[in-house]
């Protein structure tokens, strides 16, 4: 329903120009799930503490549970759904599978997008740099050792191209 409290925003979503009607209180995650059926980014804590709702906004990871949809006007948004194809995965996705860097998989989209963003700015990060960058993502299954390995493997894969 369009009312005085909604506005139309235009932005790029996973490479396409799109528009959406959003209320001023709608978060990015609510809009992505309700209007675009993109459920890869999940709301978990709703407080920006767990990183499960991570999406890339103009290349930077943001917590979709806190970021208001209206602020995404004019932005370029990438969600986990845009990475790779089923038969040609992104190097970070490949590395996560090869290292077994998950158990239940709930946190995985957030970790992969955070790792993607790290490698875009720092292609050969040290262990400490990886840990610092991923400290905003939580994994209840405790797959952190494998996640660390996976990011290092992804860095090597990306280098090879």
């Amino acid at each position, binding site marked *: 329903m369009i009312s005085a409290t909604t506005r139309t925003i235009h932005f790029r979503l996973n490479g396409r120009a799109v528009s959406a009607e959003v209320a001023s209180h709608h978060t990015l995650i609510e809009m992505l799930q309700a209007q675009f059926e993109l459920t890869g980014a999940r709301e978990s*804590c709703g*407080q920006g*503490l*767990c990183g499960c709702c991570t999406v890339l906004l103009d290349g930077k990871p943001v917590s979709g549970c806190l970021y208001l949809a209206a602020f995404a006007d004019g932005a370029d948004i990438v969600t986990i759904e845009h990475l790779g194809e089923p038969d040609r995965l992104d190097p970070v996705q490949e590395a996560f599978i090869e290292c*077994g860097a998950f*158990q239940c998989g709930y946190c995985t989209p957030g970790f992969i997008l955070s790792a993607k963003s790290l490698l875009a700015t720092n292609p050969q990060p040290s262990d400490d740099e*990886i*840990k*610092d960058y*991923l*400290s905003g*993502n*939580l*994994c*209840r*299954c*405790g*797959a*952190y*050792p*494998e*996640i*660390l390995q996976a990011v290092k493997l992804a860095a090597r894969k990306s280098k090879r191209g």
Partner: protein
Amino acid sequence: MGNPINPKIVETQLSGAATMQLGFTLVEKMHLDGGQVVNASLADYRIPGIHDIPPMENEIVEAWQSNGPFGAKGVGELATFNVSPAIANAIDDAVGVRITELPLTPEAIFRALRAKAGMPIEDRR
């Protein structure tokens, strides 16, 4: 531990279980007020993050579980058993107090030290 049908998953289960128990051992405590959990958020109830993980090595000792599927048996939570006693032992070794209740927080250690010195901290109600 039975026949590891997928060794990679067995390893992840081991370090994952140990990591979860590390949280229960050091930081995770539900605070209840009249049956209501009053710290039901990740801001007030901290769980282990990537900085909390010590270096870990997982080693699988294979065996054949005759009544398990393909000789396997469940590996979930197997690695939880040793974490709390190991850390409690380390605290006892370091400062001489034996704490038998989780979590092993700095406050719990301080209270145990004061009790041992004959100056227990009274609980305020």
